């Protein structure tokens, strides 16, 4: 028997997303991924001073809150022909890296584990820890938000549920500390205003660096003691998710964190067959056939054949998966492959669980990288090579960087000091793009073949599949970025 199942809205993500699936029996045979909110950032920037893009594109997304400011600054440096100060580059990596870690923590604890852990088991707790009772009270006191969905395949394990619950709350506290570290350097989060082309405006002092180091240490401690072990525990309980949510198998990643002798990531592509090659910018192509945009890039919500506000992204004509997993795959990271071994994974493949583990692995690797990078900061050297704001450049600038969710490119075009064009190629557009040229979008492909529970979960009033939710969330959707 065939039927249609729609999840609209998908919650616990960034943005407005609807997933429509077609089922034959209990198996997904067709899927449509639709982004449902548009603002028009690329058009809103036209006519403005180029440097304003560093502040305005930052606001594309409040979860990936530092990545666009950084990518825009790199693009503007290219446009103006400005070389950033070496301290400025270090500070930028310190901000980007710690921000990515906080982003991953939020994704795992607040957005992901409510799909896997049944927090009503907290009510069975009989121990002495008041924090657990407080947490139970918090969940019950806001029952409309934190109750009502029964996870039928959740581990029946009070101790594990209590650990995960405490980490759910502790992750927020650790992010607060990390936020203080980021604010020491950049003024405040979300949206560090100190990030400008050429470096960072802040007068960096030794005590500010100590604040940052302290925040980094506490974050590292949480990652090592809770985040990493708990993702492994989750993978142990949900082994079937190593075989679910597989995309086409093509990965694309930009280079980033390149200041140390051993860079964390170099740009590259890995094809479904396993062959790896360096990435070239010209390979990336935006296709708007199925998007509510006309040929001039203006919104057209009545366009025939369109079903999403997201543009499709192709690389050499093929859809690609981006994100921490893709970055690790194209760089053939041996440490991460070792981490997958106990789960009978001999290679880095696309799946729900490898995406979750890749984020945790990356968080730990970033913490190590940043700790090693910190001492290279030169206290008496400039934080910024300031730009002449009165210069009136004509030309184009590229800003290649990364976000928590994958490869990020900004491209600014200017004429006599005014923006004439701005192109944003954003991670979630790679992952959440629609079907074009006969090829399913990355997440659409990942949904095909999924077997869903025939009956809706108890307590759910509609046919909202938990399996589909898990697959979609494993890509860490950010629709505000994808559409912008």
């Amino acid at each position, binding site marked *: 028997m065939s039927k249609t199942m729609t999840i609209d809205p*998908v919650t616990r993500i960034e943005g407005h997303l609807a997933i429509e699936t077609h089922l034959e029996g209990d198996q997904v045979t067709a899927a449509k991924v639709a982004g449902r909110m548009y*603002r028009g950032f690329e058009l809103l920037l036209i006519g403005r001073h180029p440097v304003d893009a560093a502040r305005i594109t930052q606001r594309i997304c409040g979860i990936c809150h530092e990545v666009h400011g950084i990518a825009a600054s790199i693009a503007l440096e290219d446009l103006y022909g400005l070389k950033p100060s070496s301290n400025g580059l270090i500070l930028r990596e310190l901000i980007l890296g710690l921000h990515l870690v906080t982003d991953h923590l939020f994704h795992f604890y607040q957005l992901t584990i409510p799909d896997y852990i049944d927090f009503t088991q907290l009510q069975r707790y009989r121990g002495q820890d008041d924090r657990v009772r407080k947490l139970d009270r918090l969940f019950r006191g806001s029952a409309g938000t934190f109750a009502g969905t029964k996870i039928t395949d959740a581990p029946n394990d009070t101790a594990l549920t209590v650990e995960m619950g405490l980490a759910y709350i502790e992750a927020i506290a650790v992010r607060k500390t990390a936020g203080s570290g980021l604010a020491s350097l950049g003024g405040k989060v979300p949206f560090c205003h100190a990030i400008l082309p050429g470096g960072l405006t802040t007068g960096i002092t030794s005590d500010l660096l100590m604040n940052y180091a302290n925040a980094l240490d506490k974050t590292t401690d949480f990652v090592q003691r809770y985040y990493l072990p708990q993702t492994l525990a989750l993978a142990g309980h949900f082994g079937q998710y190593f075989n679910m949510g597989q995309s086409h198998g093509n990965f694309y990643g930009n280079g980033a964190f390149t200041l140390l002798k051993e860079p964390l990531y170099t740009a590259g592509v890995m094809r479904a067959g396993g062959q790896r090659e360096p990435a070239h910018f010209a390979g990336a192509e935006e296709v708007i056939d199925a998007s509510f945009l006309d040929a001039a890039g203006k919104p057209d919500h009545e366009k025939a054949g369109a079903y999403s506000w997201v543009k499709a992204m192709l690389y050499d004509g093929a859809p690609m998966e981006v994100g921490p997993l893709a970055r690790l795959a194209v760089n053939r990271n041996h440490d991460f492959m070792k981490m997958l071994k106990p789960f009978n994974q001999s290679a880095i493949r696309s799946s729900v669980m490898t995406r979750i583990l890749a984020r945790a692995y990356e968080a730990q690797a970033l913490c190590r990288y940043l700790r090693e990078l910190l001492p290279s900061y030169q206290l008496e050297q400039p934080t910024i090579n300031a730009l002449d704001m009165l210069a009136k450049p004509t030309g184009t600038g590229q800003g290649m960087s990364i976000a928590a969710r994958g490869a990020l490119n900004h491209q600014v075009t200017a004429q006599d000091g005014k923006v004439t064009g701005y192109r944003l190629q954003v991670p979630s557009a790679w992952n959440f793009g629609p079907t074009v040229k006969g090829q399913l979008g990355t997440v659409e492909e990942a949904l095909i073949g999924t077997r869903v529970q025939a009956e809706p979960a108890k307590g759910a009033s509609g046919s909202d599949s938990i399996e589909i939710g898990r697959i979609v969330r494993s890509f860490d959707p950010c629709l505000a970025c994808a559409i912008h």
Partner: protein
Amino acid sequence: MLTRRKFLKKCRDISLLMCGSTLLTRSLAEGFMQLVKDPPPIAFIHAQNCMGCTTSMLYGNDYDFFDLLSHIGGLEVHPALSFSQGTTYIDNLKKIADQGNYLLVIEGSIPAKPREACYLGKDPLFNVLAGYAAKARMVISSGSCASHGGIPASGGNQTGALSVADYLKLQKVEVPQLLIPGCPAHPDHLMGSIAYIAATGKVPPLKKDSQLPAEYFNELLHNRCSRFQHFTQDMFVEDYAKDKDNCLLKKGCRGPITPSDCPVRRWNQRTSVCVESNTPCIGCMSPLWPFDSDLYLETSQVEDLPWSKMKEKVGNRR
């Protein structure tokens, strides 16, 4: 056990935390006593937003969103935190709205043309938001997009983006409103206001002729800036690389036209604030944000803030 004495002390602490004064102790105490019986349900709706305002609350300043919830509870709907999804989620939102008397917090602007530029479930948000707002005890616009239109309404305004107030006026919905502008909203500004409403059942005292909480927006940022002294002595930042302490007015600072207590309240566990990182206030809490004029040019070249007049105006303040 919580004794009466301890309880009143806790109320005083919260009053200090929220307002920097003990003035509210009594009304907070009465409010929290009511709350035990009657927590106000809170629902969040995301319009054309970026989720920066929610992220801001989650980072918090001294206290974060979960601290607030463990004190006042009642969060019934939040798109980024709710465990439910799809129709279950929408049904829950409808149920809370139908019960009435709830706090509706809106993040983001509302597109009027095309309405299809933002959905809530299967409906364009424009078509259904008025129904939810009409049933609310109060509508809080969190952030500059909801408060004033913000970035989506800037430039050519590609989607006919409206502020919540303009949208509700158009839809002829009359409901008490509170504006918490900011890009993003300051966590204290939003959560302090929610705590005040929850505790007293009243709207926080408002700035004259506005819907802004007076506590946070009565003064211009410039007047409370730690670099004000440099301003009065004509000491200005010329080169970001060399000057780290001077007034940022000549770098385009919008402090003199932006109502906010940012410089004294500070951000992220009171660690810092934009101006302290040696970068001008970009006026993200101003109704003019993100401005038609260039953000980083010397004020004399900025159309909406002539430098000569600015100096005169600010020099003669009070």
